């Protein structure tokens, strides 16, 4: 059981992951070893808890992207004015938070996936996006929650033409990630407006009952002028 709150001291060991937090005189020593990638920190605070939860997958190895682009392994063709639901996978980045009484601060982020980046649009006015290639599932797939999460994507073809969709762009601001010990999930809605234009936004609901919501690192509270929709103007 990794995701969720842990009281200090704690020692979590699971295959390639070790997280050790020890208390020592008004401070804590934090050690994380994720597949050989080691981070050590000293936390100067009193009584505290540790929260481990999935976060927006756009932080590692460096926060150069604000968007996640998921390329589909197979193209989806959708007839005019119809709605369909598909399931995709997305890469998991796990955040370790420190705090007390529900107020947590990000301490560390790690991932078991190999991050890649891509360009959506032109170098002058496009976006650098975190890249992930996903199979398309018509039913909810089983995943390793430390590696892959599930996006339930409702695709609404609001245009009067058949459309082909082979990728989806997700804004890092406003991602609603929910988790339990078996699954990490998001729900999103893609509205195809024209043959090459779509907008995608996240829904604030969990895939299953009794899933907990992850803290948002890129919430609208911090970036009040930033839209939480992803507008795809350069092809879908």
């Amino acid at each position, binding site marked *: 059981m990794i995701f969720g709150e842990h009281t200090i001291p704690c020692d979590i060991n699971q295959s390639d992951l070790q997280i050790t937090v020890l208390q020592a005189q008004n401070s804590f020593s934090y050690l994380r070893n994720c597949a050989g990638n080691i981070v050590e920190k000293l936390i100067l605070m009193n009584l505290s808890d540790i929260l481990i939860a999935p976060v927006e997958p756009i932080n590692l*190895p460096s926060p*150069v*992207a604000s968007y996640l682009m998921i390329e589909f392994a197979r193209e989806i063709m959708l007839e005019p004015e119809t709605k369909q639901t598909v399931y995709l996978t997305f890469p998991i980045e796990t955040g370790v938070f420190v705090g007390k009484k529900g107020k947590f601060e990000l301490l560390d982020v790690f991932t078991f996936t190999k991050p*890649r*980046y891509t360009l959506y649009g032109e*170098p*002058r006015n*496009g*976006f650098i996006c975190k890249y992930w290639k996903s199979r398309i599932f018509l039913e909810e797939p089983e995943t390793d929650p430390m590696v892959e999460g599930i996006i339930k994507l409702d695709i609404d073809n609001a245009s009067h033409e058949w459309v082909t969709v082979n990728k989806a762009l997700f804004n890092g601001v406003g991602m609603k990630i929910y988790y339990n010990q078996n699954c990490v999930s998001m729900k999103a809605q893609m509205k195809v407006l024209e043959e090459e234009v779509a907008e995608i936004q996240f829904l604030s609901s969990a895939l299953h009952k009794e899933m907990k919501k992850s803290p948002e690192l890129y919430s609208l509270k911090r970036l009040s002028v930033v839209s939480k929709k992803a507008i795809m103007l350069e092809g879908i």
Partner: protein
Amino acid sequence: MNLNHIVYGNLKLSNILFAVLVMVLGLILAKIISNYLRRSLKTKMNKDRLELIIKIVYYLLVLVTVIWVLSALGIKLSGLMVAGGFLGIIIGFASQSIVGNLVSGIFLTIERPMKIGNAVNIDGTVGIVEDINIISTRLRTFDGLDIRIPNEKVFTTSITNYVSNIARRFEYSIGIRYEDDAQKAIDIIIKFLNTESFVLVNPAPLVFVAKLDDSSVNIAVKIWSPVSQWYSLYMRLLWDIKVILEENDICVAFPQQVIHFADKENAPTIKPGQ
């Protein structure tokens, strides 16, 4: 000291001292407000826009203070405007280059070919833009020198902005031996590049035989990466590619020449070690 001493017309010494005091206080207040804005908005907007807003606020406050001080001294602004108009023409003729720099500065602010913090090349001077004032632009070169370039020169010369686009391409030419399998080398390089996070998936890297050179088969490697990461990637990847090729028995070629002797019978025999 008699503060009621008449200096000029109805103007008393006390009026002048009061005006100087108000002017100094106005300048200090403008500076304090500028610093407060810089501190409070630093994390909320980019540096370029922030500096522009701070300059506008600062000069507006200075202007308001000057107008108020002039009014307090009994100087009529309408008369000053006429005098200022004539004075402006005289100063304009007398200092054309300053006016040129000022106008260029305004156009640079409107056109915005670069922002504070951008890496640029202005007429051969390469550096980071530190500040864009109304008269001049300041660059910090990569070896730490501070260079001031008049705006007129900046505006009329070519500017290369290395970071205005979000992604950029760089390339290598890698010469391998003729006896090595070029297609195998290409496959190895592509496979290796696909493990690098900051080598963009799209536009995909291009790897191909670019030239059959005198001593080597030259393979061109063209890579796109996020503009914030390209230089660290550029510094690292060439050696990494060389190492991974050598691990697969593909070597970087040395210059060599094959000599054929017309008279093979009497050709000199060179033994190893000679």
